């Protein structure tokens, strides 16, 4: 019993959802610290630092393990979410004529599936643009030569140019920001919900978790979203 209980039961699905979700929150923090390097002025060697960092992130074995864990979490989180959504739909085959969930729940908590789908779409595009290009893309554009002489794709230039593009740069920034809004909403429910699912609920600490969740849901996506606009408007053109 205990075995299947940790895989198949409704509660198990919650645990996995919470576990992967909270892990992805950690990932977001890490990712953000990487991205913040894009705020360094070009004149202070931002290109070198960012590209070295990118190389480290794609080659270090420990980071590799983490990154596979991240892919797994994203995929599992999404699949688990889809299964849950399907099951939950089945639990009420005939809907109400009048249903007013807005009187008792927050919009984000009811639309985690929609938000999740938007985020997933964003991740696909995001990966294709930066990560995909980095790994599988050719070297025909700008090339960056690392300290030990290896030639890799110049991710810094690619990123900065994308957002500084005169015609589409601002649009990319806006699209990126919208995705961050979706992540913000997703987090506004997801963060504290993860704790609840794992059984962490105590009157003494609930306020703290909730407030941290809100702060996290606002500050992290905001910080992410600021970067493209900074690149577009403030950073010196390259």
């Amino acid at each position, binding site marked *: *019993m*205990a075995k299947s*209980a*940790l895989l198949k*039961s*409704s*509660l*198990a*699905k*919650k*645990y996995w959802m919470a576990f992967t979700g909270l892990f992805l929150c950690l990932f977001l923090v890490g990712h953000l610290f990487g991205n913040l390097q894009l705020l360094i002025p070009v004149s202070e060697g931002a290109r070198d630092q960012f590209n070295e960092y990118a190389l480290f992130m794609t080659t270090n074995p420990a980071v590799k393990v983490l990154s596979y864990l991240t892919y797994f979490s994203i995929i599992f989180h999404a699949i688990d979410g889809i299964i*849950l959504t399907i*099951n*939950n739909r*089945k*639990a*009420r*085959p*005939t*809907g*109400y*004529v*009048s*249903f*007013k*969930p807005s*009187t*008792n*729940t*927050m919009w984000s*908590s*009811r639309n*985690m599936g929609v938000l999740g789908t938007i985020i997933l779409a964003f991740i696909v595009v995001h990966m294709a643009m930066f990560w995909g290009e980095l790994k599988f893309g050719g070297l025909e554009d700008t090339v960056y030569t690392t300290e030990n002489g290896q030639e890799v794709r110049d991710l810094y230039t690619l990123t900065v140019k994308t957002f500084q593009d005169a015609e589409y740069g601002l649009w990319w920034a806006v699209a990126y920001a919208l995705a961050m809004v979706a992540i913000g909403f997703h987090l506004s*429910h997801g963060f*504290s*919900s993860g704790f*609840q*699912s*794992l*059984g*962490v*609920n*105590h*009157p003494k600490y609930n306020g703290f978790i909730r407030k941290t969740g809100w702060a996290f849901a606002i500050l992290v996506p905001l910080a992410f979203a600021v970067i493209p606009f900074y690149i577009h408007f403030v950073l010196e053109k390259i």
Partner: protein
Amino acid sequence: MNLTLKIWRQKNANAKGKVVTYQVSDISPDMSFLEMMDVLNEQLIEKGDEPVAFDHDCREGICGSCNLQINGEPHGPDRGVTTCQLHMRRFKDGDTIVIEPFRAKAFPIIKDLVVDRSSFDRIQQAGGYISVNTSGNTQDANSIPIEKDNADMSFYAATCIGCGACVAACKNASAMLFTSAKVSQFALLPQGEVEADRRVLQMVEQMDKEGFGNCTNTGACEIECPKGISLENIARMNREYLKASLK
């Protein structure tokens, strides 16, 4: 007050149901919602129509029989009350009120607004008890002191009336608030701790079998619960279950 009522009518479990509109007049604001339904039924009987079937019994908010979805919310717009405790002074003259049964796969409709909530009973039969014989050969009641806070929390969990509003309010038709209240009630007491693992595993298994949806922590249940059963109970159940399934 004069009101327009839009009520779900369904002859039996297999029939197709539909919303039927009725008018009622001379409703006093002091009436309870179910007394207003009585007035409607008297009117229907007088006309030779079949009265609307709905569950109700104690009419003082404790038996958990009454269960109407009123204007999109279980037990109507007031908080902390059952349908029978809702009074017409909450509505305005000329209002239109939509009245539906609680809807969930695990609550099949029997007739009109009456649903079958025996799934709740089965969840409790799966383990919602302490296995002690009723022989009376038990130790003195005061031989186990229980921390007041725990006794009180257990009591609050046990005040669940099993009406099903949590399921009705949940967008996923999840029964976790109900089940967790039952799990918590015993898990919080030393008497119930002994078989806590078995209990939570069995009750959750039965809950899943009944076809309830999953909890996505929207919190609608806690807000609509006429007895204010706290989400803390769900977290406690999550904890208890995790603990039990890791063993």
